[in-house]
């Protein structure tokens, strides 16, 4: 499949994810107990036999560079295979940050040319889903389309959060011609939401991006490129009806993680065969999880390096998380090497790497008052604890709170913070 070049849009930082994306792009966000979000898309590419991948990134790329490496964990290493990180660079006319998704691809047209692809697959690196891209590629070829876009059906009322389209009935459940497209419309009757998976004929891609580059400001595929192509090019919609997990907001991110749990998880990870970089964060160097004699674990997942002596319910534990005796963790997501000491009780909390929660701390208590500074981000009762923060013994923290990264125990002036507080 070397004639398909995949470009993964992995650069975005989204303010909606608050402290979780202070030090990493959204695509490098830990997910599901051992993965990074981008693993889903890279594994899909691997299983689809797409062997040539460019990854476009510019926001705090370090953790992404570390994670992707040379792509060997997804089998992208070989004579005709490769994974290349495409970071913004200097040009003879100056240097340019990527100014939107379409601009990022535009700035790498030279790279794309050199690969001589027959088809360019552009996709977003921050979705959680399983898809074989080959049937969509077949459809794209069969239709001799200039552009084929993947869509999922939605309730028309949700349209303002998506790029939405109308697709005719040319090929029934498979897809049809895209007859209209609107980016995040306030109101519309369109029932098909774009999943940001595009198959372009390379010539068409070059042409539309070069035309678009003449204007100023940011250039996005959904907002700028697609509407301008409507009516001028042969655009098809390909219909996808599998599971689709978003990670754009904290609530979405939390819910998508929770979809891994339950008697019949919505995300059947075993079938998806998602791969990750086992060298990153010492994943492969850790011994299997140790469960203590008094542990109580229900409806939760965990990986190598975990030590669980307390109670864990409806939670996702990343490698190296320790839950000590008498501690209780419910409805929470704990990133790598976070330690929950004895007698702690935490509810609906997302704790980043290396957080230390000392004896007897309570997190997620009291009324659900929205976060005072970021009411739109944090209002459903989740509390966020930034990377490396230390919560001192006996601390009580309400719901919808944010603890800034690297806060030391001595930073806390009080031992009770009510719901909605941001501690920096």
């Amino acid at each position: 499949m070397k004639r398909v070049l995949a470009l993964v849009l992995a650069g975005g930082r989204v303010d909606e994810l608050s402290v979780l994306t202070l030090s990493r792009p959204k695509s490098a966000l830990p997910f599901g107990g051992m993965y990074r979000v981008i693993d889903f898309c890279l594994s899909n590419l691997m299983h689809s036999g797409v062997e040539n991948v460019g990854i476009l990134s510019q926001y705090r790329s370090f953790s992404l560079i570390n994670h992707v490496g040379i792509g060997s964990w997804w089998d992208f290493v070989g004579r005709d295979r490769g994974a290349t990180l495409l970071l913004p660079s200097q040009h003879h006319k100056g240097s340019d940050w990527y100014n939107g998704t379409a601009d990022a691809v535009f700035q790498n047209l030279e790279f794309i040319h050199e690969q001589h692809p027959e088809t360019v697959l552009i996709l977003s690196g921050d979705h959680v889903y399983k898809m074989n891209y080959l049937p969509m590629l077949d459809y794209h070829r069969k239709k001799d389309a200039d552009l084929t876009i993947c869509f999922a059906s939605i309730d028309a009322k949700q349209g303002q959060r998506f790029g939405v389209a109308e697709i005719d009935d040319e090929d029934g459940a498979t897809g049809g011609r895209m007859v209209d497209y609107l980016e995040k419309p306030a109101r519309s009757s369109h029932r098909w939401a774009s999943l940001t998976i595009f198959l372009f004929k390379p010539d068409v891609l070059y042409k539309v991006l070069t035309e678009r580059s003449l204007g100023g400001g940011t250039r996005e595929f959904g907002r700028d490129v697609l509407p301008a192509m409507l009516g001028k090019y042969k655009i098809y919609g390909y219909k996808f009806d599998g599971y689709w997990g978003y990670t754009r907001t904290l609530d979405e991110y939390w819910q998508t993680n929770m979809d891994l749990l339950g008697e019949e998880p919505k995300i059947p990870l075993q079938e998806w065969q998602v791969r990750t970089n086992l060298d990153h964060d010492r994943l492969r160097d850790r011994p299997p999880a140790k469960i203590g004699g008094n542990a109580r674990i229900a409806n939760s997942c965990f990986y190598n390096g975990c030590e669980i002596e307390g109670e864990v319910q409806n939670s996702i534990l990343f490698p190296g998380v320790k839950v000590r005796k008498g501690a209780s963790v419910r409805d929470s997501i704990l990133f790598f090497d976070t330690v929950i000491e004895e007698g702690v009780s935490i509810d609906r909390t997302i704790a980043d790497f290396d957080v230390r929660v000392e004896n007897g701390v309570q997190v997620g208590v009291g009324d659900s008052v929205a976060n005072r500074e970021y009411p739109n981000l944090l209002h459903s009762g989740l509390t966020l604890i930034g990377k490396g923060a230390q919560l001192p013994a006996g601390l009580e923290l309400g719901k919808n709170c944010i603890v800034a990264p690297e806060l030391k125990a001595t930073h806390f002036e009080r031992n009770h913070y009510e719901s909605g507080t941001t501690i920096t």
Partner: protein
Amino acid sequence: MNPTLVMLLAGGVGSRLNIMGAHRAKPAVPFGGVYRIIDFTLSNAMNSGLTTIGVLTQYKPLSLMDHIGTGEPWDFIGRTRGAKILPPRTGQMDSDWYKGTADAMRQNIDFIESNAPERVLILSGDHIYRMDYAALIAFHTEKRADVSIGMMTVPWEETQHFGIGITDEKQRIVDWEEKPEKARNNLASMGIYVFNTDYLLQALRSQKEHDFGMHIIPAALKNDRVYAYPFKGYWRDVGTLKAYWEANMDLLDESSGLNLDAWRLRTNVEEEGLLGDRKPAIVTPAGTVKNSVISPGCVIKGHVENSILSPGVVVEASATVTASVVMHDAIIGAGSRVDQCILDKLVQVGADAQLGVGSADLPNRDKPKHLSSGLVVAGKGALIPTGHKIGRNTILYPWLKAEDYPKSDIPPGETIRKSGSDY
């Protein structure tokens, strides 16, 4: 030039491990969820800063060769690093199988010379322990020894299984008893030798004997400097089913001294088991786990206690697994009971089956020396049909099918073979 070359003897036939060792060499037997026994020696070598290793294989080497691969998991890759598999070769004789430890070295003299090390560290891949070989090498240098042997104090009743050294106050070995009936000392050889290369090559060339413990070492005592390096700490020869099971259980006991994380134990995650494709372990709303080691890919819908689960084990609803070692991708059927078992890879326990019932007093009738402690052992891929009861000290051969069972209630001490096969 490389100061120390490691030669790892990994040929061992684990015959007393019975069906666990039937299709793999003893060093390749899985241990502790995600590891194999040889990982302890390989990780010790890595953690001691050793970078070049030859692995001598002989018996059923395939899973071992897969496992070692390029040696990358133990950092044996690089300009001056390397891991080489050294199988027996056709030499002057038609087929020169390794006839003993010294013979195995003799057949690889060319490999040793091509590496031109100052000294050769000879290890075996059969044991569970952590040792800093750098300290042994420093001891060897300090004593200006020709040979140094890693030795430890063992209970007197076990001395008959070991080479026993009698030392002077400076740890020089002055006398040697190989597997004595009545020992004069309880300082036992761990099969770990450091030889100065020149001395080793001269000894191998000037003698025709095949074994270090039986011949080469006793003969060296009179004229040469042979020293005993004292080792203290956790060390287990998991050569029997009972010892293998107990060492696995030691992982659940903090006071046992077996601590994989602290030992920086490493394994190859990309071989057969493909840990790389394994998801996190999951416990469903109805599942429970206590005092156990759980590997990635496990799905626990039933109850697990005091057990070691390798990757991909599925414990179905209301099944109970207690005091057992369960290897990769075994399936424990709904409502079944598994107690004190060693289940090899891909074993399938049918719904409502019971393994480990009745008295442990009757040893296995065919192999009483292999199995008398009450364990049930099921070989790779064996099926235990729905509702069957299996008594203790029973051996179930690999790849058993339902039709291989003479009845559904197997009393203690039985051995069930595949009909028409003498595996």
